[in-house]
């Protein structure tokens, strides 16, 4: 159980948008929530119709820890493994700052 002072619920939502699929996540993505993102992502990856592009929209994320960042990298690697372009949709804030400190901002393509 997370013990963060104010628990912001973590929410994953999947939206098919024409030729691409958009997965939106919001709240706090940490060790306790990693698995929820992975299972939503696997559902998209393994669905019958492979989308042209996969977009992970993290603009609603308020907090990301090192496990959360790993989860984003895993999503990227899983998309690339099935040959689907992966785009991260993000607005400047805690997520972009963490990706910059971690030196991995160039590892993502952005929507």
């Amino acid at each position: 159980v997370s013990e963060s002072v104010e628990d912001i619920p973590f929410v994953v939502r999947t939206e098919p948008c024409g030729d691409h699929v958009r997965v939106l996540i919001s709240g706090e993505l940490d060790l306790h929530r990693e698995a929820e993102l992975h299972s939503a992502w696997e559902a998209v990856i393994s669905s019958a119709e492979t989308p042209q592009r996969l977009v992970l929209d993290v603009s609603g994320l308020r907090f990301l820890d090192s496990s959360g960042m790993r989860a984003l990298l895993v999503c990227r690697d899983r998309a690339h493994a099935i040959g689907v372009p992966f785009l991260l949709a993000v607005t400047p804030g805690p997520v972009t700052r963490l990706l910059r400190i971690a030196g991995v901002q160039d590892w993502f393509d952005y929507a």
Partner: protein
Amino acid sequence: VNVVTDEAQRLAAVRRYEVLDTPPDGAFERITALAARLFDVPISIVSIVDADRIWFKSHHGVDVPEIDREPGLCASAVLQSGPWLVNDARNDPRTLANPLVAGELGLQFYAGVPLTTHDGYNLGTLCIIDQRPRQLSEAQVASLTDLAQVVMDELELRLAARRTVELESQLRRSAEQVARTLQQSLLPARVPAVAGLDIAARCHVANTDQVGGDFYDVVPDADGGCAVVVGDVCGKGTSAAALTGTARWVLRATVAEPWTPARALARLNAVLVRAQEQPGDYCTAALVRVDPVRDGRTTVTVGLAGHPHPLIVRTDGTVEALGRTSPVVGWTLDAEYTDVAVPMTSGDLLVLFTDGTLEVVAGHGATDDREVRALLAPLAGQEAEAVARALDDALGAVPLQDDAAFVVVAVQ
């Protein structure tokens, strides 16, 4: 099953099932409601016979939660190995003195089947009660016996589930303990003495189930100076501890020969990517080479791998961030690291820390080191231990969400 009649052992069995004084529970409520309907009686009870009372796990058609342990009804039924049937209680010598019979309730009919554990103890009964005399058919007695077995199955299931949960949490606790101990054993027992430097280091461990976390190391190197590293492993349990151990020993081996931080991080990255026990674990690190101190002067060279910048606090209180941001180690071979060298002189402080330290000083989720700089600036020129204590105080003020490690190096 032969019923065991030793009362002390029977009571021990009652305790073992941990059912006394538990809140109402849907499964048992449904069974008593079903029994009342099935046998067309106003009252049905799942009773547990305690030392000095009969407690009702479920009581359909009667409000009292427990009664005294008077002989004649449930208290007598638990001494039997089969059903206890009282068809006309007012005229039955076994029960006519019982307060439920003589008193307000006016009980005239009682049929109770003992709840017998798999090892032969009667915990209580499933009983049905009416305010008029009745007689059950053989088939009805068999049905009541079957229902009592359903109650007992339910109790056995709960006991087994509780035992499984306890066992699992015991196993988890001991696994976490092992991982935690392993992780802590990876920290140096003490910081080595290095000529011309005054060094203090800490690792504050967060009180969470997440094992992994922070490490630091201080090692004299082949060039007569020393290597200082703080790192943060992303991963859990023993695989994270293994990664920490690998990281620490790769760095120790690397600095035993002429080295630079960027080359050491590239080598560590290659080892971790190829030798990862748990795919997806990675680590961040700030690695600093401190050249041998001569006449109060030295050069520090910093390599960063996805880690907050180390800070230098000059004697005049100015604070500088060191190093060029480069990727975390252990994820991909496609990562490059850069050395950045800066001179330091007597009285200057070098502070390496993990994001756990940053978050405590600056708030949950913080990535900005402004607050850490503000905390350190007034400590310019102090001894390493004094600076470490000031950071200890800041970290001790709140419960830690994450491990927090730091190393303070003062040039003498």
